[in-house]
């Protein structure tokens, strides 16, 4: 399973492997609103994510 930390909500999810785009879609997160980080590197939506990978979602929305 893939572990996904959401920086904004402080929550952690687990989900099945797939592309970043698939994972965001599964978690019902709009890809326009986050940057996705794996191993301290920002990755694009087409990247394949494997079992045991850990992703961090950085919200791009700030301010008021």
């Amino acid at each position: 399973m893939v572990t996904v930390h959401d920086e904004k909500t402080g929550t952690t999810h687990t989900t099945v492997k797939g592309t970043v785009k698939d994972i965001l879609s599964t978690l019902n997160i709009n890809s326009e609103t986050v940057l996705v980080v794996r191993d301290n590197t920002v990755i694009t939506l087409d990247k394949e994510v494997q079992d045991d990978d850990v992703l961090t979602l950085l919200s791009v929305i700030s301010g008021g």
Partner: protein
Amino acid sequence: MKCLKCEKDAVITLQHGALCPSHFLTYFEKKVFKTISKYDLVKSTDTVCVAASGGKDSLTVLYLLKKYAEMHHYPAPQALIINEGIAGYRDGTIIDLEKFCAEHEIPLHKKSFKERFGKDLDDAYPIINSKTKKKPCNICGVWRRYLINKGAKELNATVLATGHNLDDESQAVMMNIMKANHALLPKLGPKSGNGAHKDFVQRVKPLYFCSEKETRLYTLLKKFQVAYTECPNVVQSYRADVRDLLNTMEEKYPGTKSAIINSYLNISQLYPTQQQVQIGSCAQCGEPSNKTVCNACELQGLL
């Protein structure tokens, strides 16, 4: 996905292709500098004040306006922050901004709602809301704009730069259209606020064509220390609903936000220029106003 320029792993996919960190940083800075020069946002004779919050957008504007000034041997910008008095939000961003300004040797000036209007937003909101049903963003927006302009004037600034980005601006266009606020449309655009009143400081928006996602990536790659917090009041706002709507459209139809502001820029030529829409002064405070008493004084009068 690989960078279209060098085949390294990309960190972002844009409409014209994907970019690696170093090519993205170059692309982003070039886009901002092109906006500044194309729309004549800053001249060699200008005194520039940046309305800063300590968030990602204002730190990026401060950093890039300073870099632009150094490249062209212009006077360095100054920063102005308004403390609205929103518990759990503004205090953290002020600390980030103080550190950033100290590190980059940028003068920082501060103003607050409490000092000018007598109360923090958290204390003023319930009183004003009980009489008018106004939401916190309605009050905050009026008082922030007022204090930013007043503060910039006191610094003798000829240009007031803000961190408004592509997302903010496309939202503003759609909000004004959906609420039929036609009178506000001419006030949008990368450069606004001059000519209507002698006391209005020219507003400029160097991040006008940069999305929120691009700006967050820029600050991340530049390792700026920013607390990525969202104002606790934003969930109550009309803007938040428009923001969610546009993000849904952008995800499904990439380029939607750019199309909105490009359409706006084309259509805006049909609106009267601000020089043609002259306004007067507030009878109470003397600041620019299109009414006898300005909105800021009117709200203060309810306290």
